């Protein structure tokens, strides 16, 4: 994953430059991350992604934060409907339904 920088020489030392790819490769990986995390990709594609992640710390951080985001969504809390509200709604619905 490429970060913008005004200091061009520093780019040479960035991980994605060191292992011979650039933003295009990171974007290609980014496009597949959900499918990768959901285990929907063929084995060889997963291996390619793992190789990239191992060599690109920014993509590694990115996928970790995406994984955490999905985990948070899966555990997103909601306030349950109170018994009182449930009973009131039930009464209202049954009354209207009976008149239909």
């Amino acid at each position, binding site marked *: 994953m490429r970060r913008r920088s005004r200091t061009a020489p520093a780019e040479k030392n960035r991980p994605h430059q060191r292992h011979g790819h650039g933003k295009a490769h990171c974007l290609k990986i980014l496009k597949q991350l959900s499918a990768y995390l959901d285990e929907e990709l063929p084995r060889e594609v997963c291996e390619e992604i793992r190789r990239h992640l191992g060599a690109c710390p920014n993509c590694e951080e990115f996928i970790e934060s995406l994984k955490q985001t999905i*985990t948070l969504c899966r555990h997103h*809390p909601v306030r*349950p409907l109170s018994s009182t509200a449930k009973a009131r709604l039930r009464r209202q*619905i049954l009354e209207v339904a009976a008149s239909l």
Partner: protein
Amino acid sequence: MKSRSQGRHPGARPSAELDEPAAFDQLYRDHVDLIYRFAQRLCGEADAAKDIVQDTFLNAYRGFKKFRGDAQVSTWLYTIASRACLRMRRKRKGEPERELSLEEFIPTSEGEFKLQIPMDGLTPEEALQNKELRRALDQAIEKLPPKYRMVLVLRDMEGLSAKEVGTIMGLNERAVKSRLHRARLFVRRELSARGIARQGGTGTEERMVP
């Protein structure tokens, strides 16, 4: 009178037409928590969620005779509820739909690669005790264009399969997965770049259930 669906799994197909108050009552009891939770996640407001529940079950009452049982009852109710919620949101806020492109989710500066509030070493439940994180998550979901929010809620929050989400939304699985990926990237970006205050609460307020 004994309810028709009494004793069955809530997701099972009712065996006959829903033309009796007792059977309808059972349908309500079996699914009200599910639909309320879904509506709250989709609409973000408790009062609006109650309206969605009411709308959903009344539409279910009206439409039950046409329900052929091709899908589970829960999938059918999700479909009715999702339409009700979209109608309500359009009416109230005029929320515009917009397409999300993958390119817009490429980080461009420091601090955009990680989540602002780290959850290392914490369970998701512990991390979500932090009210700032919870608020940021709620706001990120709220900001999602409706068609992306719907997929995220159904797939990642309600835990439905891509196929089930496709049935509910009238999409093929490929479209569901594409929207889901963009929705996840959107929420990730919101949680990474928002500059959430780190002194968030300890979560001792009202009890919430995942």
